[in-house]
């Protein structure tokens, strides 16, 4: 498999604090690689290192097969675009002027600017300056900024932070379109795991500066536990019956519960019926990315 980004035993220390400890990840070409981890896990530190904003303390990484200590790295970085945390914009310039700045820095023509502004939904902003933009508009302009150089690899750090539902849908669709239509490899970190689950083809789980697991979306689906979501008129009775069957379950409310142990539905319904507990609905589901991550890091909070 061809990889766009590979890190090996990457370490980063800020004073005595280890932000990254032997972090190793592999981002395959053409993937949307979702980086999952709680606050302070090291996601942004990793992004800062691969974008060249921070220097690693030890370890190495390669971009497009070029190692970080190779002088050619600066050349291949032209094939990269990134939005790190907050978008980096010139506040006193319009959206168009902002993008022209980036074309100047890249030494390319301004031809694609209108198309980019249209792509991110900022074609009608006219003379409005970036400092007067809403957070969502800034975020989208930041993405447009990262796309000016026609990148083959896009790094997005929390791209949907602060966006309204409409904005989230727009950014999601833009990311999917860039990946599917232009074949851009995307590394994305987000706290909103449900949103990440809709996009990612691969996952890297980061905890305390270390990548604890990497897997594809298919592997995650296989690894995720299946469970039965059941709605009854009395979960107290349901709990009694399930305890009797030795099943693992979780009562969500007075009427809802999730059953993790595979059980046959008919005997369960009959057993409940005998105790005057009626089943309103029953469905089979997969464990969410969030639940999987919680299981992986031991039920940690503040994801």
């Amino acid at each position, binding site marked *: 498999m061809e990889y766009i980004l590979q890190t090996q035993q990457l370490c980063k220390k800020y004073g005595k604090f280890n932000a990254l400890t032997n972090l190793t990840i592999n981002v395959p070409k053409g993937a949307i690689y979702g980086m999952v981890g709680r606050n302070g896990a090291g996601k942004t530190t990793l992004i800062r290192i691969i974008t060249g*904003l921070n220097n690693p303390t030890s370890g190495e990484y390669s971009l497009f097969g070029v190692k970080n200590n190779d002088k050619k790295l*600066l050349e291949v970085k032209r094939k990269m675009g990134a939005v*790190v945390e907050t978008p*980096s914009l010139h*506040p006193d310039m319009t959206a168009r002027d902002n993008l022209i700045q980036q074309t100047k820095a890249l030494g390319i023509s301004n031809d694609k600017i209108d198309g980019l502004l249209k792509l991110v939904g900022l074609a009608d902003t006219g003379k409005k300056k970036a400092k007067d933009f809403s957070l969502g508009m800034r975020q989208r302009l930041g993405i447009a900024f990262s796309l000016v150089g026609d990148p083959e690899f896009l790094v997005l750090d929390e791209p949907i932070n602060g966006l309204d539902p409409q904005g989230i849908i727009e950014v999601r669709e833009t990311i999917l379109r860039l990946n599917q239509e232009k074949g851009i490899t995307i590394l994305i970190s987000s706290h909103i795991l449900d949103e990440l689950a809709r996009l990612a083809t691969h996952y890297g789980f980061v905890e305390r500066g270390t990548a604890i697991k990497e897997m594809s979306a298919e592997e995650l689906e296989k690894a995720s536990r299946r469970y039965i979501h059941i709605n009854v008129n009395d979960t107290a009775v349901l709990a009694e019956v399930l305890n009797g069957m030795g099943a693992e379950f979780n009562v969500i409310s007075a009427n809802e519960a999730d059953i993790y142990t595979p059980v046959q539905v008919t005997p369960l319904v009959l057993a409940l019926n005998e105790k005057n507990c009626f089943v309103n609905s029953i469905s089979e589901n997969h464990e969410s990315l969030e639940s999987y991550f919680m299981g992986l890091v031991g039920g940690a909070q503040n994801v």
Partner: protein
Amino acid sequence: MCNLLAEGFRRLFKSKRFYIVLAVIIAIPTFASVFIRIVEGKALDLGSALCFSMIGTMTMFISITAGLFIINDFKNNTIRNKIIIGHSRTKIYITNLIIAFFVAFIYQLVFWLTLIGLCNTLMKFDDFPCTEIFQNMLLTMAIEFAFTSFFVFLCTSLRNTGGFVLSLMLDTIVNMVASLVVMFVGSKKLAHVLEISVPSLQRDDFAYNPAYVSDNIWWMILIDIGICIVVTIAGIEIFKRADLK
């Protein structure tokens, strides 16, 4: 490097600050001449005397434009956009230095041109044009470039408003400290060395005596060039090792 210069100069020319400071530089000698003309009622021979009277203030003007030009790049995090697409930090630093030198050169040139223009109308030149004044003009540019390289160093190394404030006050701080050292230092030789090597003291001899040329003028210019080189190398090395936000 050309791309970085194109990006940088576009940003400089798009900022109102560059033009506002330029307008102030033109306004100061203009208002001074008008005032003197009104008070005295005739054109005085003040052109030469005013030629170098504003070096200290000029370094402040340069730091307002060039310092904030650099600081804003860090404050808005727009420096990231250049690093992410593979521009080396050395080239980014040198680009900022070239733009800051350009600002220094343009501001000083505009000041002198304004003065020449005024001396043909509201005032008179006594000694100008003469070789001595041209030599002192060259030294003035060297002194301002030395200061400018320090501004770039401070703003790039500190990357915050503190760096800008230090740049703004640099001439005053250096002048104050160096004057005190010269005053209290026992050795006359050491005092002389300081007068030759500290940019803030180099101008003392000719600031209000424009036709006076120091015997050590070429040493002073060489020292100023040396300061530019050493400070730039140090600044680049610090910037290369820095972790950016």
